[in-house]
């Protein structure tokens, strides 16, 4: 690892800077080589493959834009890829706004500077570190139609409502993951639960970056709690919000593991997502070309969404003097 430890004998500036540059490239070489091999070359290869028919057994056959045309057909016929786009959008719309609002609320509560607050912080962060596969299995068990804790919760709820209102109320047990109308919502709830702590910690870092004297000045001016939030906290958190929004949207558009484990896209394709379709087409149906074209569609979507969110959240940056 260590290169020869020669002293910088020569005094020539040009020579020294040349040596510095050479050292720099030596330090960069292993990392850059891996980037070229596992990112750059594959991206170009994926673009080429997306213009081919390829089943990994026979050599690729050039088909031009036919894979993209098939995606277009699928979209206009409301085929499976269309469904996967729709489901992914539903997942994003379900997880991102609610998840962010909850995370901000939590961060505000946790930031209040109470003693013993770190216990809560740890609790809310716990699901973040556990694996999606493991946690998906736990939630499958919670969602179990016959013996799951959730349906039991519904029964307890019905009893409580009946007791309070005096009328017999009965919420029937649900099939959750087995119901095309509920499966995606069930996955969304699990995913919000898992991601909450992560965004909470980022919001917390943002909150701790807001100078305390602004709040003190606002208090002297007699600003209410809500006014302080509106005029100080929210605007100064804008970069944090933008960051969380962009990363959450990107993450949501790549949702895969929980879908693969909990429903494998079913029932009736009601939970299949873009990445699930890419995976299935590439590795189950061996349509590597078609899958690569889908991957590029995903790439374009992610790129566009990132640009739009950044543009939207950049407007109206606040200066505080």
């Amino acid at each position, binding site marked *: 690892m*260590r290169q020869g430890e020669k002293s910088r004998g020569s005094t020539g500036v040009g020579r020294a800077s040349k040596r510095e540059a050479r050292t720099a490239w030596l*330090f960069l070489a292993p990392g850059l080589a891996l980037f070229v091999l596992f990112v750059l070359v594959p991206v170009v290869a994926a673009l080429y493959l997306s213009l081919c028919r390829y089943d990994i057994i026979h050599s690729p056959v050039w088909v031009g834009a036919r894979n993209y045309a098939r995606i277009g057909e699928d979209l206009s016929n409301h085929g499976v890829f269309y469904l996967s786009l729709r489901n992914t959008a539903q997942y994003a719309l379900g997880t991102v706004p609610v998840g962010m609002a909850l995370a901000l609320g939590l961060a505000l509560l946790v930031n209040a500077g109470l003693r013993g607050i770190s216990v809560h912080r740890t609790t809310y962060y*716990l699901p973040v*570190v556990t694996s999606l596969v493991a946690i998906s299995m*736990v939630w499958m068990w*919670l969602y179990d139609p016959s013996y799951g804790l959730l349906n039991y919760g519904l029964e307890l709820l019905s009893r409580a409502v009946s007791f309070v209102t005096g009328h017999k109320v009965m919420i029937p047990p649900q099939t959750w993951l087995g119901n095309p109308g509920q499966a995606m919502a069930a996955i969304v709830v699990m995913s919000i639960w898992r991601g909450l702590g992560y965004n909470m910690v980022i919001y917390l870092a943002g909150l701790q970056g807001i100078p305390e004297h602004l709040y003190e000045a606002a208090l002297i001016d007699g600003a209410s709690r809500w006014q302080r939030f509106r005029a100080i906290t929210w605007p100064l958190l804008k970069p944090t919000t933008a960051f969380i929004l962009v990363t959450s949207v*990107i993450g949501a558009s790549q949702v895969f593991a929980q879908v693969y484990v909990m429903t494998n896209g079913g029932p009736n394709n009601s939970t299949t997502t873009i990445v699930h379709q890419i995976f299935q087409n*590439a590795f189950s149906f061996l349509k590597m070309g078609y899958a690569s074209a889908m991957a590029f569609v995903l790439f374009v979507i992610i790129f566009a969404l990132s640009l739009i969110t950044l543009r939207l959240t950049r407007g109206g940056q606040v200066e505080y003097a």
Partner: protein
Amino acid sequence: MRLGIARKTLLHLLLAIGGVAMILPFLWMVSTSLKPEREIFHYPPVWLPSAWQWGNYGRAMESAAFGQYFINTTIYATMVTVANLLLCSMAAYAFARLRFRGRDTLFVLVLGTMMIPAQVTMVPVFIMLKRCPLVGGNDWLGMGGHGLLNTYPGLILPAAVGAFGIFLLRQFFMTLPRELEDAARIDGCSEAGIYWRIILPLSKPALATLGIFTFTAAWNEFLWPLLITSKDSMRTLQLGLQVFQSQYTTRWDLLMAGTVVVTLPVLIIFLAGQRYFTRGIAMSGIKG
């Protein structure tokens, strides 16, 4: 902000109620893993097992090669972590401390790779590993065998360096004072020596953060091992757990025992190194 006792209690209560909702799935997982079978399929649910069935764990471990999965995952996660710490810190050192033409452009390019979703590159990388010449029964054209599929290098190499790690360490290196380095240079220390004996020891907190992040991410990784390994002897814990689940769909006692075993190591790492987690996220959040 000063809060009254009543407010404080209310706040704690509110957070605690939410906290129970966060913890409940974990408690239910542990409770189920220790139940006799008839108490699993019982309605209304039984909260605590009447007799704690520690044998469920043994039975789960015997039903699949969890020992092998554990070894595979440990090797995979450890090697990925070591590789990332070394390669990211070397690149970060060059970006933070050395001058060369095109440095800033190159840095932006490296960061730009974070925009590329892994799903775009996964098919070509899979093909490249399968067609890697002269290994795994392949001829020099990469035909005939399985290449690097079902091997440790196939699992590890594509994850051995990351733009995020380079970014994180570079930001940290930039904050280190230059005096020590300059003194070392005057004493005739080489750049490699400065990197190894000055920068790295001063950067232990940042390295710990990156290390813990990389390790848990690799430990929990699912998609990549799913593509690269098909042999049972090469599976990681996450993959093994998923296959186990597809075979024993209704044995919730064994499934939850397996889940506890897979989850426990990262939970321990998290509880031990908590401050590194939160600091790492905070660093990425603020600079992002």
